[in-house]
């Protein structure tokens, strides 16, 4: 007779000796947790049951046990709390509160892994712009440490990098509950390291990360220039990599474009799979808007959504902001906004974006990107390191601001309009041939537009 059968036999007999109410109260959730030759340990749900069984029913239980197995001489009772196992928090998404009351996000976060359960693959909208990253992430979460290690995801602000990384973590938790997962923004990693150095607990710090089965670090570009952090991270990276532990990273730019990052780290980042997340295309923006409206139980006409999708182009977070605005309008006026109203609501958004992406901004970003002085860019100097950026600036002014060639030439070093035409055409031609230039230009464009915040 095994433990379970033995206890069932005891319960079967004891129910005749006591009232139904007491039986239900005192014997609920009891069971034998261990048994050796002479001694049986019974687990009970509360101290009240423990006292009661010990003092009132000990004799009779022992008698029954003894009659079932005459070697048993002793019973011990212990309290365990089964109620906690039953009340295990549901892992499903918390219901979206209807009245928009915000919650402390910190409480949703798993204290062990740092993951926020809100981010999953299920609510990650896939489109051509993030297909590759999503597929790679999905593959990793099915098979951590085996394929694509490390995974390096990069893309502009508000495009879903954090969502994807956390979704990987959450999916691994689901598929492999025993695996240790650590999610940490690089900023926290750095401050954690600083604190560890201060408290002389650097060993504990290292161990914490080296024990992870999946290490996810968000926004690694912030490691730039932090030499000590880079060094520690390098060692942790190697230790994990050698043991075939999965590493996933994100950044706002590709590894080679991160300034002040040590070569050895760069090359390691590039050693696995690099996937970029671009700007969503129109269809995906529509899909995102539709998912969001469904999630939040809002209802807007197709036309309105199409309009928003056509106006807000570069940033998913802004799409959400636009929806918030509509929702607020709907609530205040208790009517769904029609297309005219939406157009006026978002008027400043359109004019706003063209206003900020001006000539000054382009010059500023280009000179920052190539690390040259603005005055050099505007001079007529023909130094090699200035000429190339100037050509790119010319291209961007023509392409994005539709400036006239003569005005471009005049502004950049007082050149002739033919110089501007030559520069523009040269870059257009090169763009067709060089992938890296496309990337470079896209990155500059992103920088120009990411500082726009029309909402």
């Amino acid at each position, binding site marked *: 007779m095994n433990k379970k059968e033995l206890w069932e036999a005891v319960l079967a007999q004891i129910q005749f000796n006591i009232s139904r109410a007491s039986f239900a109260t005192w014997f609920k959730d009891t069971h034998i947790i261990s048994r050796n030759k002479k001694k049986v340990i019974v687990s009970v749900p509360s101290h009240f049951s423990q006292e009661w069984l010990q003092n009132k029913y000990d004799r009779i239980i022992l008698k029954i046990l003894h009659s079932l197995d005459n070697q048993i001489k002793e019973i011990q009772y212990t309290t365990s709390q089964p109620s906690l196992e039953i009340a295990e928090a549901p892992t499903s998404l918390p219901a979206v509160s209807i009245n928009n*009351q915000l919650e*402390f996000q*910190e409480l949703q976060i798993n204290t062990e892994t740092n993951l926020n359960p809100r981010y999953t693959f299920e609510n990650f909208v896939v489109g051509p712009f993030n297909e590759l990253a999503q597929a790679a992430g999905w593959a990793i979460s099915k098979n951590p440490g085996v394929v694509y290690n490390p995974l390096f995801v990069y893309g502009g602000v508000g495009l879903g990098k954090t969502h994807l990384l956390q979704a990987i973590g959450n999916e691994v938790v689901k598929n492999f509950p025993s695996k240790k997962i650590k999610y940490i923004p690089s900023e926290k990693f750095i401050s954690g390291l600083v604190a560890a150095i201060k408290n002389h607990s650097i060993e504990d710090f290292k161990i914490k990360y080296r024990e992870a089965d999946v290490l996810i670090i968000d926004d690694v570009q912030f490691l730039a220039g932090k030499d000590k952090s880079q060094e520690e991270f390098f060692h942790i990276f190697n230790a994990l990599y050698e043991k075939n532990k999965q590493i996933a990273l994100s950044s706002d730019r590709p590894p080679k474009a991160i300034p002040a990052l040590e070569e050895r780290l760069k090359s390691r980042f590039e050693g696995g799979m690099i996937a970029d997340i671009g700007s969503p295309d129109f269809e995906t923006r529509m899909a995102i808007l539709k998912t969001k409206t469904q999630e939040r139980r809002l209802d807007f006409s197709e036309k309105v959504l199409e309009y928003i999708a056509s106006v807000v182009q570069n940033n998913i977070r802004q799409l959400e902001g636009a929806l918030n605005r509509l929702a607020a309008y709907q609530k205040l006026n208790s009517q769904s906004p029609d297309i005219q109203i939406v157009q006026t609501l978002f008027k400043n958004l359109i004019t706003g974006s063209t206003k900020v992406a001006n000539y000054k901004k382009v010059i500023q970003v280009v000179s920052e990107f190539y690390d040259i002085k603005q005055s050099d860019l505007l001079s007529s100097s023909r130094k090699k390191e200035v000429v190339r950026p100037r050509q790119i600036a010319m291209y961007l002014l023509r392409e994005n601001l539709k400036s006239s060639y003569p005005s471009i030439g005049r502004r950049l070093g007082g050149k002739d309009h033919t110089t501007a035409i030559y520069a523009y055409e040269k870059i257009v031609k090169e763009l067709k041939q060089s992938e890296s230039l496309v990337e470079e230009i896209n990155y500059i464009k992103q920088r120009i537009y990411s500082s726009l915040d029309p909402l």
Partner: protein
Amino acid sequence: MKLLVLKENLNKGLGFTERVVSKSLSLPILNNILLSAKGNFLNLSATDLEIGIRYWVLAKIDKEGKIVIPAKVLASFIGSLPESKISFESINNILHIKGESFKTKIKGFNPDEFPIIPKIEEKEFLELNSAPFCQGLAQVHKYASLNQTRPEISGIYLAFQKNQVQLASTDSFRLAEKTLLLEAGSEKSNFQGQSLILPQKIVQELINIGSEKKGKLKIYLTPNQIMFEFRTKESSQPQLQLISRLIEGDYPNYQEIIPKKYETQIVLPREKFLNHLKTASLFSGRINEVKVKIDPSQEEMEIFSQSSEIGENQSLVQGKTKGKMTEVSFNWRFLIDGLINIQSPEVSFELNGEEGPAALKPVGDPSYIYIIMPIKAS
């Protein structure tokens, strides 16, 4: 059992014990109080199998013994008596009660049927003044989550440090934290570094008891149970013991929620703020939304609420302002809940934009803080 007891003392004890008695249908014995006479004391015990209470009344005992009596009947009956001296005698599970002008019999039950309240080893303890402790609990207990899906935040968190105790609770929309300093006399404590989660029910009882009983309170702790013990000055016998299980689990690291800085601050007279909120609440509609707008150049805060069915209301409160202009929506109920537990005449209201946590702090009292999340933009 045979004894003589003073009505007043007994009545007080019954008041405390009766509150714990449960209205259990499945186990009717729990609707009763166990009376047991021993030594110089009559002991009253009650339990709902969550928490247990024991109360000792000084009595002249002629014959020791026990009986179980329905709580409600006994308490109402004793409460109605004019006399001061009452005699009890139990014969065959019937309680005979006599005074100068009356003679009563109440049917009781077999005391052996009554649940046994778990014993706590009286080894580790901490002694503190009951009044500030219970008042501190009263300032935080209301905000614990009622939702049982996350048991750890359904209770009140206590963290013992070297010379202070931190009390905290949250329901994920708001959070309150109170810091109590331990007086120098309580150095016997070896609780330092320990933390625990108290179920709401025991906290409610503690607040209720603490509002009447001044003096010292002793806390005994075992890994999953806790006992609170109140004594009187006159006797070495404890007067009241409350026993409860503790909630298992890790309390979330709530310190991270407390904002370290603010974008906008306004210092307001508490009473006025409260009254304006109450007025605004009349127009807030079903989701309890009121909007506050602070323009630092104006040294005032505007409170605005509107409902499509009722109408709208707009009012101004003057206060000292700092930081940048802001407009944030809140559930007025949550704001009022926080203000009610602040005693200072002035309160500092600190905001962090329309989706960041805001704080209410009593001016001049750093021991209390109340954090509240806004309602999302509208």
